[in-house]
């Protein structure tokens, strides 16, 4: 039971809230790393998935990518990220982690965006085409708005995975919240270890909840989104 008291004392210590090793800085580092990784993945995956979804091509690839993504072990990605970043002279920490996070974020975004566009009622799309809408207008005004909740679901999955794996960046000397866990393990400081775990778990759950809310809010009037 004493561990709870130790963790509470750790959080109460003002020293843990200040400076470059403090909680606010670590949270910001975590958000910066995760945000940039998801943004890069969006730029890569969304245009491809929109094209494939709209034309109906490449469904096999888009769907199977999700399965391949699951087989990629996060620790292996961090290691491979290091093997890429070091020869490029990008150093430790940020970039090796980034190289691991982007491939992790692409599959769920790609698959969900593809499915989101594909699952839009074909009758609606045909009606729009019959009314003389251009293909780009069909995509922009029909398919994307109707598919948005599902797309955001995929982005949410990617974001939660990225927030979780960004923790492992501490192994390659990165900052972010994993620092508390990895240092806590190495030094056998259980208060720091559990406090770090709490912060990471909280951030992951908040990310999940935020994207679920966003997905619900993005549904056009009259459309219900199942959780």
């Amino acid at each position, binding site marked *: 039971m004493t561990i709870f008291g130790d963790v509470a004392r750790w959080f109460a210590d003002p020293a843990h809230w200040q400076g470059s090793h403090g909680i606010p800085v670590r949270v910001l580092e975590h958000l910066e790393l995760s945000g940039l990784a998801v943004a890069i993945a969006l730029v890569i995956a969304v245009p491809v998935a929109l094209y494939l979804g709209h034309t109906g091509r490449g469904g096999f690839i888009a769907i199977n990518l999700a399965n391949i993504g*699951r087989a990629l072990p*996060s*620790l292996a990605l961090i290691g491979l990220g290091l*093997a890429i970043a070091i020869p490029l002279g990008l150093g430790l920490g940020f970039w090796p982690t980034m190289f691991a996070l982007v491939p992790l974020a692409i599959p769920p975004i790609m698959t969900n965006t593809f499915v989101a566009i594909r699952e839009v009622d074909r009758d609606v799309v045909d009606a729009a085409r019959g009314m003389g809408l251009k293909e780009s207008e069909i995509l922009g005004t029909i398919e994307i708005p109707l598919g948005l909740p599902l797309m955001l679901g995929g982005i949410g999955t990617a974001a939660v995975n990225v927030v979780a794996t960004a923790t492992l960046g501490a192994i390659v000397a990165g900052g972010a919240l994993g620092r508390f866990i990895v240092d806590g393990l190495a030094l056998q400081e259980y208060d720091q270890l559990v406090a770090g*775990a*709490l912060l990471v778990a909280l951030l992951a759950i908040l990310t999940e909840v935020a994207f679920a809310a966003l997905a619900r809010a993005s549904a056009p009037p009259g459309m219900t989104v199942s959780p």
Partner: protein
Amino acid sequence: MTPGEPLIRWDWIASHAGEISLRIGEHLELTVIAVVVGLVIAFGLAFVALRLPALSAPITGTAGILYTIPSLALFAFLVPHTGLSVLTAEIGLVSYTLLILIRNIISGIRGVPSDVRDAALGMGYTPQQILWRIELPLALAVIFAGIRVATITTIGLVTVTALIGQGGLGYFILLGIQLFFSTPLLVGALGSITFAVVADGALVLVQRALTPWTRLR
């Protein structure tokens, strides 16, 4: 990862063959225990959720929260209580299988057409017989889809348990990172990915053998 160093040193692999096969065995063991224990717990909870629909949301909700907690954080919560042990690794690994398995067992059994269930009831099947002879066989495809995803996910997560002194092939990934040595890193990373692909293929074959009727159509 230093200049002039080859990406893979085959002599290192040859001289560590014994250790590599040992770690593959450890990886297999950690994975099988996690999926089997996860399956037993998931079946129990899924049956509770099916009998008492009021508990369905809390059960999947709790499994969902467990699934959302990053693996390293979950292991970190456990270490002060269960130490750097196999038990810590397994509690974490089992937790991650639950959401996928429970969800697929429930949707598999709910997906059995009610006509089929009514017909069995009319033929005098007891609820027990309906479960074992009708519902479970018909739900097997969906349940197996869940087992495949859970297995692949677990194989990947086992590598993370290297940080708490377990890890199977993850041990080599960590070693490679610590020594800046690409050979063990690639052995661990590619080994783990290959393992996942082989395990998935094996499960597909098991599923085909268990559900011969799906091939007749």
